[in-house]
């Protein structure tokens, strides 16, 4: 029997979502300061309205949803999924007020794309936006990369035992430290350290390439945020092509590769276990699939006779392939070039890498290297079992921070997520094709949205149908949260409508 959630359940969920929205208000203070510092008064007002709306929401739920109970597992799942949607709705306020969006839906699309580190955007006239709005765009992708729940945990959930439940529900399973709030802070420590180092290198490179010091600094910070978070946003419409610089491309490439690795791997290396880099299943999986991608890419380029020199192959082929694989979306070519210049083979090599994606518990999306490793080892074990005597016992293990012996539950879990990704990729592609887009373009953009990559072959634009925008928002959201929380939210909605009785989920769990 499905039980209807009680008022108490709703209050617990509402209270936690309120905290997340307060976190969004706190992040908005940074672009507000940038707007004020750059005398962008109109943009400053946009952020003030956004901040006050977030604070008002938080205060309303604090008044209405006060309850002396902690979060349960189910609440955690609902808070994570509904929290992202609510954060999208409130975060889109400054975007919409900026006047660069045709509709609130377009603003929400960009917000979800930012939070989920996708990088697709519908913003119009990007080359004329304020520094404040650019700071907000990049900051939200940087914050989204760590996980907006992680932000709320870091500052606003101190001391609650239910914190771990919403942390896990955001698609992060790693606990670097025994305490989840200290884990969230460790994630921030890693990210902020890289922010200063990476931005410093980019600033030097941009200044050397002729950018003025002040704008160079801002661009360096934004490019770092876009690359590290694997979001792929850039302050100019030409993205990385704007800079015409090998060094800027090289540094961002290193940043997004590092950013795409598992936070647990980062922490392990920080703690002195450098051998983990070579032994980790995700690093091995990434290296293998990149090599396959590069091989196919070089076949494609060789056939077409385009990008024939090594620097050209590195800057146009390898860069965009790895950008796709890490689900970043930084690009050194025009969107239409994937379709018109890359050719069939090179384009599909990029699509293949995008679909696989980055590491689990990182800033990236896609199937994830960990799951590819699990599935590969499982298949290898099955083959070994077939060719071995009946009495032999075949077991497979992967190494991810520690040795993990594969069992049915692990393999089923990995397969379930991979199949879920394939379903949303397929549905997005079908919808695009039904709307009359070229199939390869529809598939490319659907996989890009679902894997949170952000490269586009030209479909994503303010003129795309509203239904497709909505589905892409769903794809980005579901892909980032890795489905479980999304299914839980759907189940919760069903229980609200069709559930029986008024028993609390909290009590039922006990």
């Amino acid at each position, binding site marked *: 029997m499905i039980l209807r959630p009680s008022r108490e359940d709703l209050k617990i969920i509402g209270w936690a979502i309120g905290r997340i929205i307060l976190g969004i208000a706190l992040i908005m203070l940074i672009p507000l300061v940038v707007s004020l510092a750059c005398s962008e008064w109109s943009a400053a007002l946009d952020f003030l*309205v956004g901040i006050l709306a977030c604070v008002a929401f938080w205060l309303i739920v604090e008044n209405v949803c006060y309850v002396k109970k902690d979060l349960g597992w189910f609440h955690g799942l609902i808070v994570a999924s509904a929290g992202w949607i609510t954060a999208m709705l409130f975060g889109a306020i400054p975007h919409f007020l900026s006047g660069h969006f045709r509709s609130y839906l377009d603003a929400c699309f960009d917000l979800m794309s930012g939070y989920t580190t996708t990088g697709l955007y519908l913003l119009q006239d990007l*080359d004329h936006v304020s520094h404040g709005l650019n700071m907000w765009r990049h900051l939200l992708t940087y914050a989204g990369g760590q996980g907006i729940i992680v932000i709320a945990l870091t500052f606003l959930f101190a001391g609650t035992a239910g914190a771990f439940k919403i942390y896990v529900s955001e698609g992060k399973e790693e606990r670097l430290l025994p305490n989840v709030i200290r884990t969230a802070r460790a994630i921030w420590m890693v990210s902020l350290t890289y922010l200063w180092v990476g931005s410093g290198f980019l600033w030097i490179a941009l200044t050397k*390439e002729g*950018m003025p010091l002040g704008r160079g600094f801002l661009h360096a910070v934004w490019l770092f945020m876009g690359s590290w978070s694997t979001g792929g946003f850039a302050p100019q419409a030409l993205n990385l092509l704007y800079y015409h610089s090998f060094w800027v491309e090289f540094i961002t490439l290193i940043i997004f590769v590092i950013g795409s690795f598992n936070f647990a791997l980062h922490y392990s290396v920080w703690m002195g276990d450098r051998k983990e880099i070579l032994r980790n299943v995700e690093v091995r999986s990434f290296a293998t699939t990149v090599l396959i991608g590069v091989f196919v890419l070089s076949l494609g380029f060789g056939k077409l006779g385009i990008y024939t020199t090594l620097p050209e192959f590195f800057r146009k082929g390898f860069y965009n392939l790895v950008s796709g694989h890490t689900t970043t979306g930084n690009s050194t070519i025009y969107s239409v*070039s994937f379709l018109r210049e890359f050719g069939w083979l090179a384009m599909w090599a990029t699509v293949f890498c995008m679909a696989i994606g980055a590491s689990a518990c990182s800033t990236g999306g896609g199937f994830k290297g960990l799951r590819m490793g699990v599935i590969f080892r499982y298949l290898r074990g099955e083959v070994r079992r077939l060719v071995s005597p009946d009495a032999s016992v075949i077991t497979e293990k992967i190494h991810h921070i520690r040795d993990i012996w594969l069992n049915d539950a692990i393999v089923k879990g990995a397969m379930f997520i991979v199949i879920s990704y394939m379903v949303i990729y397929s549905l997005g592609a079908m919808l695009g094709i039904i709307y009359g887009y070229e199939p390869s373009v529809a598939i490319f953009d659907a996989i890009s949205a679902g894997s949170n990559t952000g490269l586009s072959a030209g479909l994503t*634009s303010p003129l795309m149908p509203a239904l497709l925008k909505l589905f892409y928002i769903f794809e980005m959201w579901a892909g980032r949260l890795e489905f479980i929380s999304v299914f839980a939210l759907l189940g919760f909605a069903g229980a609200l409508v069709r559930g029986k009785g008024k028993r609390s989920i909290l009590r039922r769990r006990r």
Partner: protein
Amino acid sequence: MRGVVVAAIITVLAIFTQVPLLVGYVPVIWAGEEEWEAPSGEKVTIDQLINGKHVVEERIMGNMEYYDGKMITIEGEVIGDIMYRGDYAWITVNDDPYSLRKSLEEGGDFVGLSNQGIGVWVSREAAKKIMTCGGYKNKGDIVSITGEFHRACHEHGGDTDIHAANLEVISSGYAFSHPFSYGKLLAVMVLSLICIYLYYLRHQKIKKVIREE
């Protein structure tokens, strides 16, 4: 039962194919038009687009192979930065309506799509003619550039660019101010009052809970 399912699928597909009309979907067409409107407003034919007449960026990007190595003329706003590299410099020129007419910040209308712009490799002397680059507070200089288009420039690591042979400033850029929005100020004031009231309520509630405990 099976018939009902098939009928339902057909109905859904029929609705989907009509949806583009309902939500204003306009497919992007890259090539095949008989006439093309140049930034200056004049109507030109496909033959006139190359070698001497203006080419719009959208047209180039849709037909890169066709224009590769050809001399073209584009007209657009210089945006962002001038990045000097020795005796040369990189500029970015955008020819979408936001650049050629009014940007959204200046009060321009939505036109649907904005272009990405194109990188132009110009001599240092030519770059010095540019006084204003477009951005949030400025309308950039409108320039006319004639040069060789490269779909994958061997000199610049495969970049898609134009090597300018001639740069002419058609109209100078200028700084513009943003109109102050009293509506937004009113929203700030109303939301501030609401927040103060809600904060007071929350404070009272906390006091009450502490008293009860």
